[in-house]
């Protein structure tokens, strides 16, 4: 069984469109995250979220918004897509809010904006 699953695996879309990436975890974790990995493999945290608190990296444009219908899901909505949004987006989860708790990652969604 896949612990952290993301859909779709590939997403190709045009500039200006709005898209969503879904993420689900079946580990019973209470905290979920979104990371962006650029072409040089640098990973940057975008959001961390548990049932009490959403922490947003201040460098993330407000075109990006996380939506959590329940603690097993954290979806990523992106409005007005730009060329620079092309990257691989990873969802992750952990048991408690980070301290001494490793992250479990999904296999990523490769977003290409044309």
């Amino acid at each position, binding site marked *: 069984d896949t612990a*952290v699953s993301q859909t779709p695996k590939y997403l190709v879309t045009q500039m200006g469109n709005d898209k969503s990436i879904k993420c689900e975890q079946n580990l019973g974790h209470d905290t979920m995250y979104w*990371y962006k990995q650029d072409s*040089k*493999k*640098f*990973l*940057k*945290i975008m959001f*961390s979220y548990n049932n009490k608190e959403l*922490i947003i*990296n201040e460098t993330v444009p407000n075109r990006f918004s996380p939506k959590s219908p329940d603690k097993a899901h954290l979806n990523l909505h992106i409005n007005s897509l730009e060329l620079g949004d092309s990257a691989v987006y*990873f969802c*992750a989860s952990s048991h408690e*809010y*980070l*301290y*001494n708790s*490793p*992250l*479990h*990652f*999904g*296999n*990523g969604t490769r977003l290409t904006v044309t």
Partner: protein
Amino acid sequence: SQQGEEDPQALSIQEGENATMNCSYKTSINNLQWYRQNSGRGLVHLILIRSNEREKHSGRLRVTLDTSKKSSSLLITASRAADTASYFCATFWGSARQLTFGSGTQLTVLP
């Protein structure tokens, strides 16, 4: 700014040799973690070392941490072709309340 930086950026070795990757960071940390990423896949947690620990082992992996130098190293002994992947260090520092990753070392193990 980026918290962890790995060195070297790329490493190519023969199967059976040992591989050593280094990580430097900038601020005090609570713990440091190493992850592996195979091509086209997500990151997989390898090992976590707390700030009050100096060395940790897990199978063929050995991690050291020197908080005075703000550095860590990951040693993979008797490497295998299947160890070919990118390796990332990540640091958790309380004030940021987030896990920050370095840019990774691409390890290639030649059969």
